[in-house]
């Protein structure tokens, strides 16, 4: 095992050396870094050119410059010495500093999108696998292919047009005309009727119910100007919480485990009480406080599960803990919604909340909630774009993995033992289907750092991709190398982790030492 890891690391280091040498030479030879100065008419042109030549050490040939860079970069391997030197960019900024800023931007952009894409993709994949060859399956498969084929810059521009500009125009006077409400309701009802499966009667009833509910909600929203002063309120939290409690119980423990159901419902009741109790506290919220409150919420949930017990105490604790977390999320969401009017009328936002570029409104001031809303309104469009293009691969992959597992003998055995379909799917099939998915998730997390070059450039987020592209256009090897090394190292480390995780999760796979 240790031999294997060491061998992999040594190979990786050698590959990295070779590749970084190539990348440096390619960047350096791709053009003339002084081109913009040569073309300029500034009186101190020669001086500027000399300054840049000195800054980037252009008199030294590129291969030798690489080794100078390597000597500086090698110091990064010395832990805690603080002598890391990755050179400076054209504008004179140290690369280590630029990388730090870019990394934060990139991670705020891609983390949420990746997590959501994984969650939605895996659930869609499982559902389509269980309903193979149904209308839902064909629909999702077609959507997956469509998403595979969408150029992300095209999606991004469309999102800007309709998601931001269109929605902002709508927010100015948030009234939904009756025909639109009926139309949206009809589409939603139709989609659900097609997706739900089963007999025609069941489909019609479900579709009709969804149609009525969606239409009524839209009419209600329009009448009360909900989009101007959104909020959930205790009633919605209670109802939605009860729904969440039942859903979580169905998935994790099965409705027959009454104790689990009761503990999750108790948690919901506690959540509604807490909703009133924490409102004054939330007004002075900080990120740390929200994190601590979240932790406390989960702990309370687990404790409720522990005291309710039942024949499977662990299951009750899990159900109650998950429910507590989700209900806590609802409360926080409600608080964000309460901050919406003050964000909306903020002098920097001026009634056009959904932003098309950047990662935050410049110079905005406000409390935690307003700033949080600001980040949210800036992230929502790039996040949707990223989810759309990365959703498909998770869906398809989970689907095929799940289909393969459902053919296994141990699934037939589990069915033959008389286990409920829930425990066959959640306990036996899903867990095993997750093993190959865990590896692609590890690959993708490794690739996260690289950022999304195109998404970042469309939405003007100054992340890793932007740094990289900027370095290329300015023929500036140092930022390019900085990004490249970060990306390559994380990708290689996560590839190794993926391989190790695979053999840890699936004992049949052995690592050849």
């Amino acid at each position, binding site marked *: 095992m240790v031999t294997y890891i060491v061998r992999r690391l040594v190979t990786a280091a050698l*590959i990295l050396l070779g590749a970084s040498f190539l990348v440096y030479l*390619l960047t350096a030879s791709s053009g003339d870094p002084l081109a913009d100065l040569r073309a300029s008419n500034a009186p101190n042109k020669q001086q500027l050119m000399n300054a840049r030549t000195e800054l980037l050490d252009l008199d030294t040939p590129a291969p030798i410059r690489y080794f100078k860079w390597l000597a500086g970069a090698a110091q990064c391997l010395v832990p805690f010495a603080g002598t890391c030197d990755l050179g400076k960019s054209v504008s004179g900024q140290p690369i280590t500093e630029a990388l730090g800023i870019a990394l934060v931007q990139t991670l705020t952009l891609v983390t949420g999108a990746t997590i959501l894409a994984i969650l939605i993709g895996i659930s869609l994949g499982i559902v389509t696998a269980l309903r193979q060859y149904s209308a839902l399956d064909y629909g999702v498969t077609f959507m997956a292919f*469509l998403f595979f084929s969408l*150029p992300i*810059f095209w999606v991004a521009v469309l999102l800007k047009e309709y998601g931001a500009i269109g929605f902002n125009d709508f927010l100015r006077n948030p009234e939904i005309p009756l025909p639109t409400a009926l139309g949206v309701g009809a589409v939603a009802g139709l989609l659900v009727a097609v997706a739900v499966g089963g007999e025609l009667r069941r489909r019609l009833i479900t579709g009709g119910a969804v149609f009525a509910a969606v239409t009524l909600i839209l009419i209600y929203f329009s009448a009360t100007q909900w989009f101007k002063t959104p909020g959930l309120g205790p009633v919605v939290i209670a109802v939605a919480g009860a729904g969440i409690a039942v859903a979580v119980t169905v998935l994790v423990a099965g409705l027959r485990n009454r104790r689990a159901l009761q503990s999750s419902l108790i948690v919901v009741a506690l959540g509604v009480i807490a909703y009133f109790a924490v409102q004054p506290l939330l007004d002075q919220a900080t990120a740390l406080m929200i994190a601590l409150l979240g932790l406390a919420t989960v702990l309370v949930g687990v404790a409720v599960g522990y005291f309710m017990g039942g024949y499977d105490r662990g299951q009750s604790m899990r159900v109650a803990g998950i429910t507590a977390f989700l209900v806590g999320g609802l409360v926080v969401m409600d608080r964000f919604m309460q901050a919406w009017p003050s964000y909306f009328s903020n002098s920097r936002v001026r009634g056009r909340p959904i932003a098309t570029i950047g990662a935050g409104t410049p110079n905005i001031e406000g409390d935690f909630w307003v700033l949080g809303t600001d980040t949210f309104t800036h992230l929502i469009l790039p996040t949707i774009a990223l989810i759309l293009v990365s959703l498909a*691969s998770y869906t398809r992959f989970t689907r095929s993995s799940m289909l393969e597992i459902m053919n296994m003998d141990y699934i037939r055995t589990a069915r033959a033992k008389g286990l409920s379909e829930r425990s066959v799917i959640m306990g036996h099939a899903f867990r095993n289907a997750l093993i*190959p998915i865990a*590896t692609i998730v590890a690959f993708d997390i490794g690739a996260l750092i690289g950022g999304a*070059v195109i998404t970042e450039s469309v939405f003007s987020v100054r992340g890793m991709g932007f740094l990289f592209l900027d370095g290329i256009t300015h023929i500036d090897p140092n930022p390019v190398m900085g990004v490249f090394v970060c990306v390559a190292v994380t990708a290689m480390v996560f590839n190794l982790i993926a391989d190790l995780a695979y053999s840890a999760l699936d004992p049949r796979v052995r690592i050849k030492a």
Partner: protein
Amino acid sequence: MSQPTQEEEILAQQAVRGPGDAPPEHESSGLSQGQIVRKRFFGHTGALIGLAVFALIFILAFTSVGVAGIPGWWKYNHLDVSPLVGDGAPTAGLVPPAWGEHPFGQDRIGRDLFAMTMRGAQQSITIMILIGAIAGILGAVIGGLAGYFRGWVEAVLMRITDVIIIIPVLLLAAVVAQIAGRRDEGSMFAAFANANGILVLGVFLGLVSWVGLARLVRGEFLTLREREFVDAARISGASNARIIFKHILPNAVGVLIVNVTLTMSAAILLETALSYLGVGVKSPDTSLGLLISQNQEAFATRPWLFWFPGLFIVLICLSINFIGDGLRDAFDPRQKKFNAKKASDANAPAVEKSAATAFDGTKGD
């Protein structure tokens, strides 16, 4: 780039499962492998539709504006400027069906968008086919050599693959774009690249996108070379070349074809993305990605400039993806899959039966 594609999905799948883990089950006896594959492929509705759409776009793109100096049937080309008709709005309509002077509209200076889109589609398809051909050949040769000969050949080739796989394509494309863009230097390559930007870009992208294919082919070769029929061929004195071309390659060709198709669909997105970022096809020539990039600012005033090129990218890519899916189903030996409906159908009679026997039992009592 950042966008996952079907090809990557396949790569991940193969990496996880190990290639060729199930021997093919022939449900149709008496047919050759090629016949079975053909039968399955033509039974795949999505693939057939994809094939038809792609053929249509291909013919439309190459005949309308002409190719390589041969004039097409459309009256404009992508550079012609003509007076604006109706402020450049598209003249094509469905009700009543009409084609008009400028079916897809015109841009601000009066160039015909139909001609530009067709030219762009042509470029994208050319690049796609070039990438597919070059990546397919290189991937097959390198992966095959590494997988068949093993030893130091494999070590060297696979390390090269590893190095190329981690160098960002964007950087390489930028370098080529820069070199091609240096008009002042008059070197042979720069002159050639200036005249044939598309060919250079396609060849170049092909030279970097074979790596995934090489890994897959190597995996295929690794399993196939241990099979009995290869041993038999070797014992009867076949040369290495004969074993590779006559015995192993025909068996690995399914994986190769499927993944070349998927590489091609990824190639379209790659080309458009590079053109969008300004390092792919350069103006005055045009490509679908470049058209979108040039016209995204005009979305509010002339949305059609943005819609049609995007639509064509999606259509081409979608049809190639469906063809690839059809091919994969056709070549995939693991065809019989779990069917929940069938399973529940099989369960349902069993339940009824037991209930019936119970009922019978009470009746008998």
